């Protein structure tokens, strides 16, 4: 590969490969393919290899820089085009830097975590509920939305809040959960935020949670359980095969997550290429952006739009939504000896819930967390039978009580909201969001005072 031994281009082009073959058809005196010969002629091997290393190291250094700043400009929330719905995964370090951006030293950071309900699905930018919450709380507080659709109670914002707490920031967390339901670590819809933060040593020490982490790591390596859907008599075999393949790929991805994020913690590839995807060009095709998939994600606006009242509760989804409401409380209650409904305290659902409420996040974060359980739209609740309504009430009361016992400040929102206050079965319209802010603001101020963040 050195200059003195490299043949000229003309020599390469004129040198005819030997035609002789042996009895098996193999060339008797093989030479390199033309491409390889040109490569050897143009490339100095040692220089090339050192350059590969330098290129890789430069990317790592830029990735480290990107993990200490936020790429997001005029940030309001991780909307549709900058969240995992469209294959865009902001890193936990970028989320933390975004939360801290423009915060004053004495401000209390109010981190809005969890899912689409607190994210403000159905609430346009100008009418998002957190704007009203910020007005009510005043300048001593800074409200930051770290929620995005599909994230669970202890995902996304909760991880960011914990990391900020470790950095000695004044933090309050607002996070939503459904009745009697918390996700174990191995079932999280957005596992990447937690695992990334853990690999980067951004989390507080918590032996109870670490025991759960080890259980989750062990479960990732277990063989797949048979999916009931695969045994449906009318299931399309091709679709089921595709689903099984995708599920197997997802299991593999989760199994490799601890290793992958460990590597990323050192090499910072996620920070660099996520920042490039936001600022310059996106490199991953996904079906929702279609022919614009390569556009820089900063060029996509927040697409949340209001929905007319008459379109919010389509009849075709009525049964599905009613079942959704009924399912929350079903496994949490039973008929007592007197025939009345009562909490089934010994049920697996409650014991799992009690356990998860204590290991989902460390005690230091729990006492800074306002946990919110929301009522569904009265459009559906009005059609529940008296028995179902009683079951729901028991489920809500049991959830709030157990969360308070675990160290959170937990309350319900939406009991007296109207149909107009809902965007669909579970999400709030702008008016409902504003009412939620009215409910949460005094609780947050009380919590901040208890923690000594503010004097009044």
């Amino acid at each position, binding site marked *: 590969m050195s*200059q003195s031994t490299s043949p000229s281009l003309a020599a390469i082009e004129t040198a005819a490969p030997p035609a002789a073959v042996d009895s098996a058809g193999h060339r008797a005196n093989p030479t390199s393919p033309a491409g390889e010969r040109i490569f050897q002629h*143009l*490339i*100095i091997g040692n*220089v*090339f*290899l*050192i*350059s*590969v*290393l*330098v*290129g*890789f*190291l*430069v*990317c*790592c250094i830029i*990735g480290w820089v990107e993990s200490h700043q936020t790429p997001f400009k005029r940030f309001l929330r991780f909307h549709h085009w900058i969240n*995992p*719905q*469209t*294959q865009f*995964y902001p890193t936990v370090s970028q989320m933390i830097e975004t939360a801290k951006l423009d915060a004053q030293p004495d401000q209390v950071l109010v981190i809005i975590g969890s899912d689409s309900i607190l994210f403000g699905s159905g609430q346009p930018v100008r009418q998002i509920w957190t704007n009203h919450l910020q007005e009510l709380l005043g300048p001593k507080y800074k409200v930051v939305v770290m929620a995005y*659709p*599909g994230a669970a109670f202890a995902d996304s914002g909760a991880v960011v809040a914990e990391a900020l707490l470790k950095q000695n920031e004044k933090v309050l967390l607002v996070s939503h959960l459904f009745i009697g339901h918390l996700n174990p670590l191995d079932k999280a*819809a*957005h596992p990447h935020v937690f695992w990334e933060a853990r690999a980067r040593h951004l989390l507080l020490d918590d032996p109870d949670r670490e025991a759960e982490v080890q259980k989750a790591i062990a479960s990732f390596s277990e063989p797949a359980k048979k999916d009931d859907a695969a045994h449906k008599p009318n299931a399309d075999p091709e679709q089921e095969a595709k689903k099984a393949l*995708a*599920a197997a*790929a*997802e299991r593999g*991805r989760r199994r490799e997550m601890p290793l*992958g994020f460990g*590597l*990323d913690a050192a*090499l910072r*590839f*996620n920070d*660099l*290429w*996520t920042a490039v995807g936001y600022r310059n060009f996106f*490199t*991953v095709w*996904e*079906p*929702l952006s279609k022919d614009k998939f390569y556009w820089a994600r900063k060029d996509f606006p927040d697409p949340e739009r209001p929905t007319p009242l008459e379109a919010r509760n389509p009849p075709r989804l009525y049964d599905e939504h009613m079942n959704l409401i009924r399912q929350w409380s079903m496994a949490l209650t039973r008929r007592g000896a007197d025939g009345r409904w009562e909490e089934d305290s010994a049920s697996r659902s409650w014991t799992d819930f009690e356990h998860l409420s204590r290991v989902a996040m460390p005690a230091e974060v729990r006492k800074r967390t306002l946990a919110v359980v929301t009522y569904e739209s009265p459009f559906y609740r009005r059609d529940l039978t008296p028995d179902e309504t009683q079951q729901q009430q028991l489920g809500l009361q049991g959830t709030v009580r157990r969360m308070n016992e675990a160290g959170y400040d937990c309350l319900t929102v939406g009991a007296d909201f109207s149909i107009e206050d809902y965007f669909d079965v579970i999400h709030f319209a702008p008016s409902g969001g504003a009412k939620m802010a009215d409910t949460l603001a005094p609780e947050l101020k009380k919590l901040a005072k208890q923690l000594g963040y503010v004097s009044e």
Partner: protein
Amino acid sequence: MKIVLRWTVSVVIGLFVGAIIHYSLYRIGLPLQPFIYMSF
């Protein structure tokens, strides 16, 4: 002149390949489909 060209080509392609390897680590960590199609 020729050696300068070979150095330049080697460095440019080398840097590019280094960046591609770094990018590949990011790319292989992404799920095959957006989570929404997996969960719902």
